[in-house]
């Protein structure tokens, strides 16, 4: 009886602490911007995995649309094997881009085609150059964007597919666009996706929503390439720990049963 009672109290205490943490974290999702809707992502949940077909299309969107302004510094071409690309395909993708290497024997830096072990080539040599080409706004690196926003994938999907005409009376300064999901509603990035902006080789219709969906799947993988391994391992570890806890509890009961407690 005492144990049950104590457990209940322990549960209440931990619950309270967890609740406090919940409240404090949810505080940051608040803002004046429109709230992004929950989407049903393939990668969600304990058994969620990367939707490889979608992420492969997302790579195409990134390369043909986003990579004009946005870098993807933390991801290397070799990592694309996670998404099902073969070594030859990866080599071919990398070879389309030039990286600066060196210095060579003469002390000069030189350009060479990228290879699989190189990180994705950035469109600008540094942040200052990126800002200079984008009216002073810095296009963020996309490697971690899904993890860097409280709304995560839902937010980025809503943002990419949520451009619309500004409501009457809303003043949109030159160089900015209206997007109800962006904090402050005025965003420096013009609507990046247009119907049939890319041509998918698998025949998928390249609607704005579809492209946003695919590129978010790609960005989610880029942000957490360890996700599938993590969840798979986690399932085993947690199962093991539950069994261990149960055995230990039974052994403890047995041990204490000969005490007049």
């Amino acid at each position: 009886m005492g144990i049950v009672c104590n457990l209940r109290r322990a549960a209440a205490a931990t619950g309270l602490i967890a609740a406090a943490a919940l409240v404090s974290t949810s505080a940051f999702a608040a803002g004046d911007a429109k709230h992004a809707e929950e989407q049903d992502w393939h990668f969600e949940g304990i058994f969620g995995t990367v939707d490889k077909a979608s992420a492969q299309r997302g790579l195409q969107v990134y390369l043909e649309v986003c990579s004009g302004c946005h870098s993807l510094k933390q991801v290397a071409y070799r990592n694309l094997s996670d998404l099902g690309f073969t070594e030859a395909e990866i080599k071919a993708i990398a070879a389309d881009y030039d990286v600066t290497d060196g210095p060579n024997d003469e002390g000069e830096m030189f350009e060479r085609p990228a290879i699989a072990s190189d990180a994705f080539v950035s469109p600008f040599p540094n942040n200052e150059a990126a800002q200079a080409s984008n009216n002073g706004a810095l296009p963020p690196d996309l490697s971690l964007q899904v993890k860097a926003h409280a709304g995560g994938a839902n937010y980025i999907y809503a943002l990419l597919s949520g451009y619309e005409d500004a409501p009457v009376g809303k003043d949109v300064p030159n160089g900015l666009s209206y997007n109800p999901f962006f904090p402050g509603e005025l965003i420096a990035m013009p609507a990046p996706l247009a119907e049939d902006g890319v041509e998918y080789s698998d025949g998928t219709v390249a609607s704005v929503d579809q492209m946003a969906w695919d590129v978010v799947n790609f960005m989610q993988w880029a942000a957490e390439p360890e996700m599938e391994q993590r969840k798979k391992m986690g399932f085993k570890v947690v199962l093991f720990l539950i069994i261990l806890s149960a055995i230990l509890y039974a052994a403890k009961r047995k041990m204490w049963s000969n005490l007049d407690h």
Partner: protein
Amino acid sequence: MSAGTNQTGGTGSGLVKWIDSRLPIFSYMQKEYAEFEAPKNFNWFWNFGAILTFMLVLMIMTGIFLAMQYTPHTGLAFDSVERIMRDVNFGWLLRYLHANGATFFFIAVYIHMFRGMYYGSYKGPRELLWMLGVVILLLMMATAFMGYVLPWGQMSFWGATVITNLFSAIPLVGDSIVTLLWGGFSVDNPTLNRFFALHYLFPFLIFGVVILHVIALHVTGSNNPLGVDPKGPQDTVPFHPYYTMKDSVGLAVFVTIMAAFVFFAPNFFGEPENYLEAAPLVTPAHIVPEWYFLPFFAILRSIDFNIWFIDAKLAGVLAMFGAIGVLFILPWLDKSPVRSAKFRPMYKWFFWILLLDCIILGYVGGKPTDDAVFAGAAWFKIIHLGYITTFWYFFHFLILLPLLGIFERPKPLPKSISEAVLGGGTSGAAATAKPMEKA
């Protein structure tokens, strides 16, 4: 063969005896852990000492292996952490264990502290034991703060800027101290470098104080849920195997919960903003510390008015450190002769109110001060809630506790632990409330 006891006593092998007669580690372990008598009525809250020991070891282990891969340089730190996450074998596991480990370390330490407060574990003769615990808490906070700077994300940078700027509130020498802390004129590479060095050092200081904490514990013996001292062998059991086994159960459950977060929601307690590399010219819209600092952060922000000749900035800093300072003198603020809240009808209520107060303080610390608390009442802002809860925090420790000791009428204490346990709670023939016996 008795369950689990080791043979290190007098019957050890020749080698053990040889070593033990020169360096008595075996007989020490035997005496302090195997034969050490602990009250037999611990509840599950007494698991957290063992859990905290485990967490400290886990943090040091993961930390050392992370340090092998981490680069403390402003230009490389963020990328080196991402390299750990992406390229190092199981690097993501080490880092998520370390990051979530900090959270669960603090969860455990706060439960441990509130357990101590509920059952009066800080009262004589355990005052030094408690104060060493507060020292550990302070060291943990310093370690956690410096560790949070190392990934060099936006929150790392701005957290470091804000917290180091606290010291600028000190009159006359404040600015010089801040410059000294930074090693420059803003948080920059020298700051990151020294924080890394100190973040590596502090856990070993904590380890040292933990040893003192345990030595002090073994001198006075453990408190227990009844708060009355054991009267003899009928009230105690040997620590091993009874409590090693019970601690293992609690530890396994605790680790299971932590593992669920590490593997399935590793960023639940983290700040998304910290996945953006530090940008010294762009402050995030809303700076918040990690959740375990939020109550103290709330107290800091709640003093936004001058107190007599002390300006608001200094007063806020003093209040924040004072919030930990009152814990140091807690054994002398609580005048009641009875330890356990079980027998203190009024204190019991105020204990729960204090816990609630701390949770609300945490909530306040995570919200912008100008937000309304309730949607319908715009005049009642977070800052007002902060005033009330900050006031209550100090009121509880500085005014209520001393008064309770005078005015509260404790319930009758059981004569002994075994009487209470066998007699089913406090209904047995009980002595009238009397001052606790000194051990």
